[in-house]
């Protein structure tokens, strides 16, 4: 089928819960399987019942591809694979595979911490799900079941601002559009702003709380502060709460080659993850006098250590909380970001928020400029926008259509976009092969009447050529290999080895009429390419071992012969 169908189950004119179904060439692929933090019932996951009512996702889906480890892209994986039921392959990169379970565990912890949470995946389910993951390298191509044409001419990019991408001219480019309308100030500006704010707060003797999730931004901000502290020779302690595992740092080190160039470059000079100024936090430190900076989980201030510290520090206007990411409705993080000054806590207590509240997004989503640049590089035939708010998407869609004059789609959740493609792939055929084909007889080539041709396809230097197997071997400097199968059949036959061979010869001659059966002088019998030999040991002369060997082309005949001989030789011979 030449059509590509794309249906978002989540992230269609929407942020969070990214989950996009793509049907292409008879294959059904799910891109991402994310969750929405804004709900605490089943609505947090994509509704898979739209795919199949009976819940047998394995029957329908050929594979799942996860773009990266953020929870809005992988948070529903254990739910899908273990609770709804999916046994097929899940593809992701090595770093994603390593980091994904840490974030899922972290999230599970936050969730079970809340009251009345049901129908949520367990630690065991996360592990079982990870067992279904097939890790990939960058630029690695995977064939999804080799029995059918399954070349995925589809480019799915996320979370990449300046990712290098070839001019691959995909039929469709699916891209996120979170910051569709913004041209963001440079990351460097944001970083400088961040350091300035932390510094000011510390200077006036305040405490700075930075609520974070286990991995990602936490490490990046740590590197920033560590470098700044070193340069400015600052003495105030920086703490890292225990919820942030050693393991997370470990993986950051391990996958250094996958991180951005700047981190990589600095890493050569010194190991950025061995912090001099950043120490592990103990909850008693929160009461220590004097300035300090604390990184604590979770990132939305709705439970655990970060909330506990926040409660202690909220009453002092010298203190500051910096929210480096998005907070969903209902969380303390969301409330203070929207300027609420009086918070109702558990029980009857009210908490007055006097500390300074700052929001700084360090998310790596692409802005409008980045997306346009990506399109220019990849030259897709169609664009499909996901993971963004409807209004902003519409703005970007107009811009793309005007500038590139290509179709741009922004389906809502559940809406199917169909893109018609032209899947013809030109292939050059060697003249020799054509001549040989003609020599074999048959009608002359007619463009209106397609016919089958046999040959070897060489894919080299972006060109496709069909040549004869011999020519292919010659061009590639390879020699031909022959695959032979062998097997042993035990026979009880109280004759000499030579007689047994003769008996086998007569038997086969009578059974296989019309086949070339020969008794050769070197004590072998040959049926087409199949070679038979007989041997026995001195201890058991009556137990004959018949050795059979055949080449691949005679596979059926070979297994037929072995089955036949297993039944024994007729006594009448």
């Amino acid at each position, binding site marked *: 089928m030449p059509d590509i169908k794309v249906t978002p189950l989540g992230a269609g004119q*929407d*942020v969070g819960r990214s989950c996009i179904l793509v049907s292409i060439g008879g294959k059904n692929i799910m891109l991402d399987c994310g969750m*929405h*933090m*804004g709900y*605490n019932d089943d609505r947090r996951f994509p509704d898979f019942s*739209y795919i199949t009512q009976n819940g047998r996702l*394995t029957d329908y889906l050929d594979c799942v591809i996860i773009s990266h480890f953020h*929870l*809005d892209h992988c948070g529903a994986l254990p739910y899908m694979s273990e609770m709804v039921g999916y*046994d097929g392959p899940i593809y992701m990169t090595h770093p994603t595979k390593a980091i994904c379970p840490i974030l899922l565990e972290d999230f599970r*912890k936050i969730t*079970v911490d*809340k*009251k009345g949470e049901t129908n949520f995946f367990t*630690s065991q389910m996360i*592990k079982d799900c990870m*067992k*279904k993951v097939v890790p990939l390298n960058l630029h690695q191509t995977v064939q999804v079941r080799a029995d059918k044409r399954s070349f995925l001419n589809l480019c799915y990019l996320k*979370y990449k601002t300046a990712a290098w991408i070839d001019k691959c001219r995909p039929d469709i480019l699916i891209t996120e559009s*979170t910051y569709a309308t913004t041209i963001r100030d440079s990351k460097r500006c944001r970083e400088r702003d961040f350091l300035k704010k932390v510094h000011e707060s510390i200077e006036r003797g305040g405490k700075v709380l930075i609520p974070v*999730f286990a991995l990602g931004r936490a490490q990046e901000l740590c590197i920033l502060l560590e470098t700044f502290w070193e340069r400015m020779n600052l003495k105030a302690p920086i703490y890292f709460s*225990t*919820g942030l*595992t050693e*393991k997370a740092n470990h993986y950051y080190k391990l996958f250094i080659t996958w991180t951005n160039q700047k981190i990589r470059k600095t890493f050569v000079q010194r190991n950025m993850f061995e912090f001099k100024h950043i120490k592990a936090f103990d909850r*008693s430190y929160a009461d220590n006098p004097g300035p300090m900076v604390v990184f604590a989980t979770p990132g*939305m201030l*709705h*439970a*655990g*250590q970060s*909330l506990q510290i926040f409660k202690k520090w909220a009453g002092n206007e010298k203190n500051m909380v910096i929210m480096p*990411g*998005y907070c*969903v*409705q*209902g969380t*303390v993080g*969301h*409330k203070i970001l*929207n*300027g*609420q000054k009086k918070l*109702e*806590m*558990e*029980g009857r207590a009210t908490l007055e928020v006097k500390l300074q509240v700052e*929001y700084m*997004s360090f*998310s790596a989503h692409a802005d409008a400029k980045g997306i346009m640049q990506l399109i220019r590089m990849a030259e897709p035939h169609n664009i499909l926008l996901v993971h963004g708010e409807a209004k902003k998407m519409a703005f970007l869609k107009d811009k793309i259509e005007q500038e590139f004059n290509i179709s741009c789609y922004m389906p*809502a*959740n*559940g*809406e*199917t976009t169909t893109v018609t493609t032209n899947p013809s792939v030109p292939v050059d055929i060697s003249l020799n092969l054509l001549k040989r084909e003609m020599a074999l007889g048959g009608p002359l080539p007619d463009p209106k009447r397609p016919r089958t041709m046999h040959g070897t396809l060489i894919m080299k230097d972006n060109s496709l050529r069909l040549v004869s197997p011999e020519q292919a071997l010659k061009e590639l400097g390879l020699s031909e290999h022959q695959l032979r199968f062998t097997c042993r059949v035990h026979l009880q036959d109280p004759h000499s080895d030579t007689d047994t061979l003769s008996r086998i010869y007569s038997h086969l001659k009578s059974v296989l009429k019309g086949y070339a059966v020969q008794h050769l002088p070197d004590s072998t019998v040959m049926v087409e390419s199949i070679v038979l030999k007989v041997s026995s040991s001195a201890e058991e002369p009556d137990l004959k071992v018949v050795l059979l060997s055949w080449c691949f082309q005679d596979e*059926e005949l070979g*297994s*037929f012969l072995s*089955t036949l001989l297993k039944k024994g030789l007729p006594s009448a011979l």
Partner: protein
Amino acid sequence: MDSECLSLLPSVCEVLADSKLLPPDDTSLEKLLDWFKDLTSQDDGQSLLQHQPCLLQFLYSVMESEVVDPIIFSFSLKLAGLLAAEESGFCLLQEKGVLVSMFVPDGWHVLGLWKNASVRCGWLQGLWNMLQHPPAMDFFCRNGIITLVLNLQNDESLFITSLTNQILAHILNCSMPRVLGNDTDSTAEGQALVSSDWVSVTTEIMSHMSRSLASEDQAVILPGLRLLAIVLTQCGDPLKRLLWKHVLEPLEVLAIRKGDSLTPPMMAVLQAAARTPLYIQPECRVEALMNVMLYSRNTNESVLCAASILLLEKCVSIRLIGSAVISLLRICIGHYPSTILQVGNFPHLIGCCKIQRCGLDVLGSLTVYEESMDLIQEAFAIILQYMQSPDSHATVLKKAHQAALKWFSICSPSTDLWRFVSNDLFSVLKKHVCDGRWEVRDSTLEFIAQLTSALKGNSEYTEALHTNGMISVLFTALSDVEAYVQASAVAALGEALTTTNLPLCTSLQEEIVSHLLTVLAQDAESFPRRAALKVFTSWLKIPQTFAALDQSLSSVFSLGGNDCDWEVKIHTLELADVLMEKSLSHCPYAVQGYEPSERCTEQALNKLMDLGTLGLLFKCLFDCDRPVSQKACALLLKLRAFMKQTSHTDGNDLALEICRYNWGEEILHRYCSKRPEQSDCVSNDDEVSYEQIDIVKCDPCWPKEISLCKILDVLDLDEMQHTLSLSSDHVINSPRSLMEDILFVAHQSEDNVVDCY
């Protein structure tokens, strides 16, 4: 009803209706609808509308606005539907003209809002909410809404077509009894209600269905088939019969139509039909249609058909299915059946993981049938082949383990089987524990643990486990590079020791305990530590005593209590729970004046104190992770109850030197706040600051020790338990918090961009 919330409602409505303000995110709107749903289920829509005039005002202003945000418009449609779900609310809205202008075509559709999928979805959802009573049905039928609904059946949104089908089935279900005149309570009055509109709507739906099925366009046929399957499962028998007559002809055409992807939905329809009385009526031709489907398709598709027919009834014997599955599994692993003919058909199945996994699943599920017992030898043989095959994928091996467990659960302990276990199975499992793939090592260890647990008390198995070198393999696995695998090794080893009836030599016990203590102290990845504590708890639960464990309990409590992982702490508390239960239950409930029991209690408490159990409970009580402090609080309440029951004195005997512990400060803090009158050192404020505590600690007039009973009293555990049970969730989910958030967001000038998490 929360009056505070209702007092916020007018301003929320105002904010939502104001197109100049930012609309809240859709989760907020959905949660607001949840709240309205709760309200209307407690109280009908009419009284809500009467007491909250702002709602009606909101609906009016949305309808009149020309620049309304589609998200808000969709919300108002759903809300109107909810308010009209009861007759009284419906009548009021009808009277005010709201329903006509919101739900009848040609009103606002001109505004271009209809192009927005969320608006179409909201419109359907609103209808779905409303169509719960005859007046709403009347409204629906009289106003020609059906045409629009039928159009939406071919919408490009999956969500909309699915909702449309639900609504159509619902309409048929509601109207048919009356239209057919067999409504059970059909009085003359009831009959009078059946207007011609109802009849024409049902006729229109049925004709539409048969037209869809007769279409050439697959995109039109598909929703038709889906609706048919829904009706056949959800609606009453008379309706099914009537409908079947309408659709049989196009179905017969579809059944012979080849080369498209309609086979699965067709089979879904036939499956649904076969479960109704239509199946036994020859003129309905359900079976004939199945036959046509089965024989007119290519191999792949007829396999699909056959599979769904097999699912239908137990028309084929279990033994036959079993044999088929086993043959298929053999082909998939490359073991050919004897004839060449069969081989030719399946070369592509060899090594196909998808079929291997599915086949092993089926093989396992056969164990629920008694007839399967005959297959047991063959089943184990094929499972073993899969385990032994070097080509088996990790996910396939896991399925083989699951199937094996199921077969083990039904087999009687025959000698042959144990030979199989100790010779073949254990040797392959030992190999797998050292496999290069962590998935295989882990699944194998999990399998060993599950098998050991399932065969608890089976002496042959236990013997095989302990004499085959398996234990030493498990020991080796404790130092695996993968934390998951280490944890599974811990669990398997723990299981192996609890199930054994063999007298265990002390040295082995000691060896394991010391290994697990090392895990607790050194592991950095939490899974092995959690597993170690679970093992300790399971050992403590069994009647036999593990001397080695008893000696190490204090180290376990200290390590577990100071762990940075909250689940390790929870498991440590569970261990403490079992220990408390065990030591305190030995003391008979005290009858006043009986000294022995008191002494026993005292001894038990002293032991708990010495092992660090009490310290653990107090430390965890103030933990920042709610589940930890909640569990500790529950245990302390248990302890308090026990002490109240057993002791007639104040319990002054057991005193805790609180200054020695870091949690002591917190307790002292509370102690001071609670009884300020006892000391001049502390001011009479409600709250005592930590600076003051420092003064207290240095003051010689303050006790360095406080009795356990007093501490338990001072802590106000009941209040703590109550607060903890409310959890952070309390803040997040309350409708009041939701409304406040909506109000605050609307007046926020800066847009906090929603990004990743």
